């Protein structure tokens, strides 16, 4: 997949484009002057030491935070002033660091909540719940896609961590988003779950764009076409894994002794 990163980028290739994006918290600039371009159809990773502004950047793009300055364009459209729910409706759907399921709804209901909005009956308090049953087949298909079909009747709270992540991805895919934003999809996962979710991300990225924040550099190296390294709220370097990991500034600011070191270990000086 990474050979795609070598291609030339033109303006129309960019699905997300930020210009001079900045966020200040009471005078502290968590993100400053970020020009980020995510090319359509790629997996783009946002990495950097702790406190580099990755998650802030992520929250700005999904509109969960309001930018202090700069603009964000999605498919050429200025979305800087939109509300988070409206951005989601455009097809730009995010995940969360803590796995985001609806714990006391069943696995099936979790996916159905995402499927039901386009029906246009979501305000109809007089209509029976059974009117949602026609979504069950699609919900099951989505669950089968992530290997959860046998758990459909269980409450989500009982799933293992990796399966919750899988459920979250199934729920997100139910919206048929053009672009996925994954906030640390592997956080807190065991090796086996990481392998499974990596496969899943590769699979769902086939016909969409993915932007992810991720700490696990093996995952980043394996999955991403392009990597943007942030440090102190600014872009330090950009390119494929080989390019970025050779960049001396990146090595100094982030990796300390060299490529492959887990984040955090050498981040204290950043």
């Amino acid at each position, binding site marked *: 997949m990474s050979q795609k990163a070598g291609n030339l980028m033109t303006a129309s290739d960019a699905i997300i484009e930020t210009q001079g994006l900045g966020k200040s918290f009471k005078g502290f600039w968590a993100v400053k002057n970020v020009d980020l371009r995510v090319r359509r159809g790629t997996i783009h990773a946002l990495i950097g030491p702790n406190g580099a502004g990755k998650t802030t950047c992520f929250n700005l793009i999904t509109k969960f935070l309001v930018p202090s300055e700069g603009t964000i364009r999605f498919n050429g459209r200025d979305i800087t002033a939109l*509300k988070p729910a409206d951005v989601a409706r455009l097809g730009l759907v995010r995940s969360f660091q803590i796995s985001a399921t609806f714990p006391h709804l069943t696995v099936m209901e979790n996916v159905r909540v995402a499927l039901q909005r386009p*029906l246009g009956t*979501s305000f109809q*308090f*007089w209509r029976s719940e059974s009117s949602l049953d026609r979504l069950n087949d699609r919900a099951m298909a989505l669950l089968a896609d992530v290997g959860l079909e046998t758990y459909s009747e269980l409450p989500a709270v009982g799933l293992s961590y990796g399966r919750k992540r899988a459920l979250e991805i199934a729920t997100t895919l139910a919206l048929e988003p053009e672009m996925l934003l994954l906030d640390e999809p592997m956080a807190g996962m065991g090796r086996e779950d990481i392998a499974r979710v990596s496969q899943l991300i590769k699979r769902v990225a086939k016909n969409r764009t993915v932007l992810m924040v991720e700490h696990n550099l093996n995952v980043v190296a394996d999955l991403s076409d392009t990597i943007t390294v942030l440090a102190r709220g600014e872009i330090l370097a950009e390119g494929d894994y080989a390019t970025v990991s050779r960049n001396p500034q990146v090595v100094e600011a982030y990796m300390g002794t060299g490529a492959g070191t887990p984040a955090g270990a050498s981040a204290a000086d950043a």
Partner: protein
Amino acid sequence: MKSREVLIGLLILAGLLVAPTAIYPVFLMKVLCFALFACAFNLLIGYVGLLSFGHAMFFGFAAYIAGHAIKVLGWPTELGLAAATATAALMGLAVGLIAIRRQGIYFAMVTLALSQMVFFFCLQSKFTGGEDGIQAIPRRPVFGVIDIQNDITLYYFVLAIFVAGFLLIYRTIHSPFGQVLKAIRENEPRAISLGYRIDHYKLLAFVLSAGLAGLAGATKVLVFQLASLTDVQWQMSGEVVLMTLVGGMGTVLGPVVGAAVIISMQNYLKGLGEWVLVIQGLIFVITVLVFRRGVVGEIWAAMTRRKPESGPPA
């Protein structure tokens, strides 16, 4: 699961139909009014996760509207009830627009403050009769034909209102709208990220809850032929919280049971005077500390625990 719910509901309904042969109907009607009030309140706390601490404003103000419409304006009973319910729903819309943007304790505080404003308005304004309230409100025949002077007939009319309100809430909980409400209660940011404009959903739930609380207050006016400051003051808001917690918030029948327990205590322990409040306080503390799910919630949990786990282990 669902058929069992229906069965329990039918049994309770059968019980309520024959109840006035054994129990004083005015007491039963009082329970039903508060049960509807608590159910309306539970729609917010139990299914949206919003703690309103000002629901007395809808309950009490709707009572004044019904009383004024029926006694002073001479409106028929059903029109008085409808006007009161609509007024409460409109108040819910106004209050909701202000309060819905806040969460947790701030939401509770905003609703409390607004309900205090309504209380002082009722205290000062002429049409409410101030400290006296509106008294001797006539029981006009419903739809011009059903005479409700008789307590037994009135009981069945009140029961019909309660059942209608209860079914509306039940349907709301089990509707596409209810699914979204539960999703918002479970994980608000996630519901937003799925494209739901959650404020709109919360607002509609608030309006429904306020309207039904108003219907409950207006119905109580028919029973006691009185609308007074008691129903609009903040203690009433506290009482409905207590009923819902004791019965079990987030359960369909919990508020009904809670209302029955609290009203029975107030009624049958009258001889103890002020001590009833102390006992209520104790029950509140014990419920919060030991029976967090409330009476119905604990029974439900015990029933589902006994059943073997279904489906594959997670």
